[in-house]
């Protein structure tokens, strides 16, 4: 379980996270929803200690984030995180060098699944393929949690379908996933939990199936209510 | 393992090349000859504070060294601090080692020091401007070597130019200073008598005052005759009072006339007397040790004749003759306490002036090898 307890984050005087509380469970897909610039990425960065928070607590399975956490949580940012002059196989070797949780056979499977060639240089890849490599580096780790920042943004429709397929596959199964998006359409049926963010606060945190069942509202319905009201 | 090949190559390059370079540098220093002074006869203590400086120059090595009774030290063997301070102020170094606390804060050691068997006196100068007039503050620290008692006091002096000498006579500190009056340009040597108990100037006596001259092209000056050991107790201080007439020629200024007088001041009695010793007659007045003034003459036979003049009795002692051959270079000499030290041809000799005897003789050797082919001695002095 990844927990946010009263997390406050400021950039100078600008408050980005203003007392954020939410939890994301293992085995569930939690989606952070909000327009651009509401602090979705900041939340992910904060979990990985890629940006400091001013107060509050972030716990992974009840523990503070340490170097060990990086064998347990993988973050797939929306930008490429490998050196452009590396070949895909070199990038995989790098991961294998440093992570005990690196699963080479899974990596090979993902390579096939995404139709990537391991001799290709990362700098020569298309945007979609770069995103796939990015996913590969995260998904091939035997981690309990995966964080994905805007995996669908700026990517062609076929790649989007391919990525969406990942969520329903054994690659994700039983892991906890936190995904951010500003556009819910693609994945409305994929997510267990929606966390609506605005102005640095959580407007609403709900289970999508329960919401449909109890109130007959889609995620977009709730968003409409929340953001307009 | 292929990944590590570049770093390994560079590591090997670094260790190999820098390692060789510094090992080779260290080996050059290790090969330097270890000269030392081997006693032939006499009292060895006489050369305890003697320092012979020179250069060893052979093949790739060109190194300055300091040779003492304790052995030889090359400048390449100095550590970084010693190299930074330089190998020159041995008196300061000796005093620092012996009296580390007393010597703290002392940078400059030259004429501002007095040392006898019992006392060590240091004077620090400080300027201060008051009403556009420079005022010297003299900070005097005094150490009783036996009781370790330290005293400090401060006096202020006007019109001072610099300290000439310091003596300790009859429980009083005497600071001899040169004064220059800014209006009259008058020069004088003044004896400041300071009682260490009161810490103030008890008496201020003018020893010598320069002759007045109103002519534009005449200059007056009073200079002290160099002492071989400037911190030692001196029975006499010698001053030369000069009046120079200068003319401007086509090739710059030229001294056309020089009137000079040699004055001896007795530090114990406070009396002074004029010495009538012309260079023409006696040769070059080369050294002074407080009692004797040494004149030196090279004869045509290739001898160096040292003529000690007793200032007290105003008469010459027996001359000391040293065979140096036709070649005059590289004869080092110094004097101390009525003793003449000569370093020549790998020999160190000490003569007693009164008796004319050799009271110490030593030989500079390296192992069993007295070969000084690559050595040049250039200076001898006392710590």
């Amino acid at each position: 379980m990844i927990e946010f307890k009263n997390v406050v984050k400021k950039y100078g005087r600008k408050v980005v996270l203003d007392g954020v509380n939410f939890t994301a469970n293992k085995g569930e897909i939690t989606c952070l929803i909000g327009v651009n610039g509401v602090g979705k990425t900041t939340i992910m960065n904060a979990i990985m200690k890629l940006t400091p928070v001013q107060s509050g607590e972030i716990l992974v399975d009840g523990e503070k984030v340490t170097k060990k956490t990086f064998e347990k949580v993988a973050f797939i940012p929306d930008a490429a995180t490998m050196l452009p002059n590396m070949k895909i196989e070199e990038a995989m070797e790098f991961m294998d060098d440093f992570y005990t949780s690196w699963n080479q056979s899974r990596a090979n499977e993902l390579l096939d699944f995404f139709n990537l060639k391991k001799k290709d240089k990362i700098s020569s890849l298309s945007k979609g393929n770069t995103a796939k490599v990015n996913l590969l580096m995260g998904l091939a780790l035997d981690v309990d949690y995966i964080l994905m920042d805007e995996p669908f943004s700026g990517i062609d429709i076929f790649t989007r379908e391919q990525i969406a397929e990942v969520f329903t596959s054994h690659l994700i199964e039983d892991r906890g996933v936190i995904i951010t998006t500003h556009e819910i359409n693609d994945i409305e049926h994929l997510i267990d939990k929606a966390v609506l963010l605005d102005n640095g606060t959580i407007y609403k945190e709900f289970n999508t199936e329960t919401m449909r069942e109890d109130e007959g509202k889609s995620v977009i319905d709730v968003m409409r209510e929340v953001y307009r009201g | 393992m292929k990944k590590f090949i570049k770093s390994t190559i560079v590591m090997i390059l670094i260790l190999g090349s820098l390692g060789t370079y510094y090992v080779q540098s260290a080996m050059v220093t290790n090969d330097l000859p270890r000269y030392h002074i081997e006693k032939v006869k006499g009292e060895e203590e006489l050369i305890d504070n003697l320092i012979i400086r020179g250069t060893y120059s052979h093949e790739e090595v060109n190194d300055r060294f300091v040779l003492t009774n304790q052995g030889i030290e090359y400048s390449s063997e100095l550590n970084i601090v010693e190299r930074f301070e330089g190998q020159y102020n041995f008196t300061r170094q000796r005093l620092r080692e012996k009296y580390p606390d007393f010597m703290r804060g002392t940078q400059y050691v030259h004429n501002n020091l007095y040392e006898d068997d019992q006392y060590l006196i240091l004077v620090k100068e400080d300027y201060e401007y008051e009403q556009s007039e420079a005022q010297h503050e003299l900070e005097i620290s005094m150490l009783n070597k036996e009781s370790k008692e330290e005293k400090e006091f401060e006096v202020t002096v006007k019109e001072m130019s610099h300290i000439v000498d310091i003596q300790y006579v009859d429980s009083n500190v005497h600071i001899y200073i040169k004064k220059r009056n800014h209006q009259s340009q008058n020069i004088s040597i003044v004896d400041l008598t300071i009682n260490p108990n009161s810490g103030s100037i008890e008496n201020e006596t003018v020893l010598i005052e320069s002759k007045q001259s109103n002519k534009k092209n005449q200059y007056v000056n009073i200079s002290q005759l160099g002492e071989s050991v400037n911190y030692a107790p001196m029975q006499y201080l010698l001053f030369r009072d000069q009046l120079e007439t200068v003319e401007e020629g086509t090739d710059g200024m030229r001294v056309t006339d020089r009137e000079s007088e040699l004055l001896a001041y007795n530090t114990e009695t406070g009396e002074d007397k004029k010495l009538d010793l012309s260079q023409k007659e006696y040769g070059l007045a080369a050294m002074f040790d407080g009692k004797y003034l040494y004149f030196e003459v090279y004869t045509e036979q290739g001898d160096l004749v040292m003529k000690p003049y007793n200032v007290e009795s105003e008469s010459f002692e027996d001359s000391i003759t040293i065979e140096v051959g036709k070649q005059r270079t590289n004869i080092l000499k110094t004097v101390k306490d009525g003793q003449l030290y000569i370093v020549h041809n790998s020999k160190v000799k000490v003569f007693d002036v009164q008796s004319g005897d050799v009271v110490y003789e030593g030989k500079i050797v390296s192992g069993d090898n007295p070969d000084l082919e690559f050595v040049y001695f250039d200076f001898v002095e006392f710590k």
Partner: protein
Amino acid sequence: MKIKFNNRDPVYVQVIRHFKNQIAKGFLEPGQAIPSRRELANQLKINPNTAQRAFKEMEEEGLIKTERNQPSRVTSDENILQDLRDELIIQAVNEFVHSVKSINVPLDDALNLVKQKYGKEKGDLDD
């Protein structure tokens, strides 16, 4: 297998409804093996948890049976299958009544129209 989901009803309910239709229509025969929940999630592009929930509900209703290390199978229990058919008919009738009532059509007229229509489309009825 493709379902067009609406966003307002719970996805698992839509999945169960889909299965019920398939069984009622005979696309899934009694005792036939159905895809695993993971395969199902993957085929339907839904969250595996949702698929899991749908399976669980169907098991509780007795629509499917799962034995250890065996793929789930459609029940062969005739009673349950009959109930399922009844449920679907009642559901359809309810919807029909509800719609017809709302436009104030007399029941007989409506029933006549139903008879005519039913006769025409017999054989390839679709819900």
